[in-house]
């Protein structure tokens, strides 16, 4: 497996595809950070806690935050690295040669997945490190210990999230013969999860628990609760919640109803201690890992017993 892993890694790192995407991610990250820093200066008092984390989460008036950019780019890069993993080998006639070598067939999938994940890891760590470095220079405040741990947890969960999209893309590359099809299928799933799920969940919530002019507090929370819980079908929602929990400690809850309650009451809770934040995002993380495992298992089941013809 190591031989395939090494080759895939080298392929990715030297590919134009990766270079273009990485530059794009880097550019938008730096841009977002610049805007964020402009905004932070006016927004926070020097005594605020977790200023450093704000570098990642603050959005400008017109530009979204670094966090938003990252949550946008992780799926795109992961799909770009995985959508043709298997079917490209098939159409170039390499797959027949590959699976007739003395290797376990699953090591082809494993190696491709791990190589993609390694590249995504390098990218995420790299971008976060660059942004953090810029943040220290410009804000002039080094992160405290807790902020470092929160950032590391954030990097970890981002890699896990990237792993989900990679596993999905690899699954489609096993299911579909044509690379164009597998790319479109991956992108379609991404669009549904990223844009539509929240909209549809909102529509369903409004039908199930309508909010009219004289809505009571209960009606508000019920609506929010349905909306929030339905949105959790989407890994994009889960990732959003997890990163919020980690990088915005002042958000004390990820429970949609309670969240409405606290903002309704017009006050935010005191920042959550680190341990509580980690506990808070634990279910989100486990769910994302489980979803990746499902995609991975499906690729296995399909690929392991499949007939490999050279056309």
């Amino acid at each position, binding site marked *: 497996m190591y*031989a*395939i892993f090494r*080759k895939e890694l080298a392929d990715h790192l030297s590919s134009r595809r990766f270079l273009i995407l990485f530059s794009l991610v880097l550019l938008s990250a730096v841009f977002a950070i610049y805007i964020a820093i402009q905004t932070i200066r006016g927004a926070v008092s020097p005594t605020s806690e977790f200023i450093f984390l704000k570098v990642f989460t603050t959005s400008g008036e017109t530009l979204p935050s670094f966090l938003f950019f990252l949550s946008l780019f992780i799926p795109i890069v992961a799909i770009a690295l995985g959508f043709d993993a298997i079917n490209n080998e098939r159409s*170039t*006639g*390499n797959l*027949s*040669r*590959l*699976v*007739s*070598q*003395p*290797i*376990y*067939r699953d090591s082809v999938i494993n190696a491709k997945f791990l190589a993609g994940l390694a590249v995504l890891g390098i990218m995420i760590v790299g971008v976060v490190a660059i942004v953090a470095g810029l943040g220290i220079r410009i804000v002039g405040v080094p992160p405290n210990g807790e902020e470092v741990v929160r950032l590391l947890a954030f990097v970890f969960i981002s890699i896990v999230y990237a792993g989900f999209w990679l596993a999905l893309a690899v699954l489609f590359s096993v299911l579909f013969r044509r690379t164009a099809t597998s790319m479109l299928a991956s992108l379609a799933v991404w669009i549904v999860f990223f844009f539509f799920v929240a909209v549809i969940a909102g529509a369903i919530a409004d039908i199930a628990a309508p909010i009219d002019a004289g809505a009571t507090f209960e009606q508000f929370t019920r609506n929010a609760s349905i909306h929030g819980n339905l949105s959790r079908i989407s890994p994009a929602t889960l990732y959003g919640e997890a990163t919020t929990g980690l990088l915005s400690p002042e958000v004390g809850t990820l429970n949609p109803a309670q969240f409405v309650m606290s903002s309704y009451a017009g006050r935010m809770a005191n920042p959550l201690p680190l341990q509580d934040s980690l506990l808070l995002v634990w279910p989100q993380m486990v769910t994302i890992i489980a979803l990746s495992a499902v995609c991975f298992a499906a690729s296995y089941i399909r690929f392991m*017993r499949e*007939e*490999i*013809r*050279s*056309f």
Partner: protein
Amino acid sequence: MGQLVVETTELTKRYNGFTAVNSLNLKIEEGEMFGFLGANGAGKTTTLLMLLGLTEPTSGTVRVCGMDPTRDARDVKRQVGYLPERVGFYEDLTARQNLQFTANLNHMRRTEAEEKIDAVLGTVGLARVKDQNVGTFSKGMKQRLGIADILVKEPRLAFLDEPTTGIDPNGIDDILKLISGMGKRGITVIFCSHILPQVQRLCSRVGIMSKGNLVADGAIDRLGREVVAAGKFRIEAELEGVGPDVIAAVRGVKGVHEVDAIESTLIIAAESDLRGQISRAIIESGALLLGMKVEEYDLETIFKRYSSEA
């Protein structure tokens, strides 16, 4: 008799009710050069895939080097080199890098692999372009690289699926020489093809597939007789009138296997072209001979007959 390296019993593959390979019983001995003939769609590739464990048989058993290719996939693949029908390489790697990757997958040590790769690239005549990207190679060069790819792993068996399709005549000649070279190295070769002369040139033994059935299997020079059970030559003799005497007389000729009479024509199956002896026998028996025709059942005829049926 040498050791059996390939053995199938009642091997069958069906695709949604369509039988691609039907109850195949095939035995191949170590060191044989086996020609696997058949028109397109006859089931050759499907058979190879089952021998390699790249598809599972519907029923029947496969043994390659005494092992089951589905269960002991890795051990079988260590011993078998496979040249797929449409072989492909990583186009943005050089010939040498492609082979290096194969060597890595076969856990060869680096220095050993490098020597080996240089040697086999020399053998297949690609030494001068070994550091060129495979994307620049012609079909014939890629096919030769495919053979090098097999040689690198020093297999006991080589399965070659239509290795000469889409290649110009000179290229075909090179490839046939390389395949013959494989045989000389002691590699057992299964050479799949739909082109009889190429197979005849290399193989001592052939099997002919037709619509999933192995319709003939044997040494190339004996095959004609085996297929037409009664003999290799078919002689027709037109007579003025046919009686039991003349049939008995023709039967008595040495080398004649069978005699049938259809109206006033005798259909004779014989070992060789016995027109002289047969005509003498007919005349001596008192019958009148009007004319004779001979048809040879050579491999070509047989193969053509099966190919056109498919």
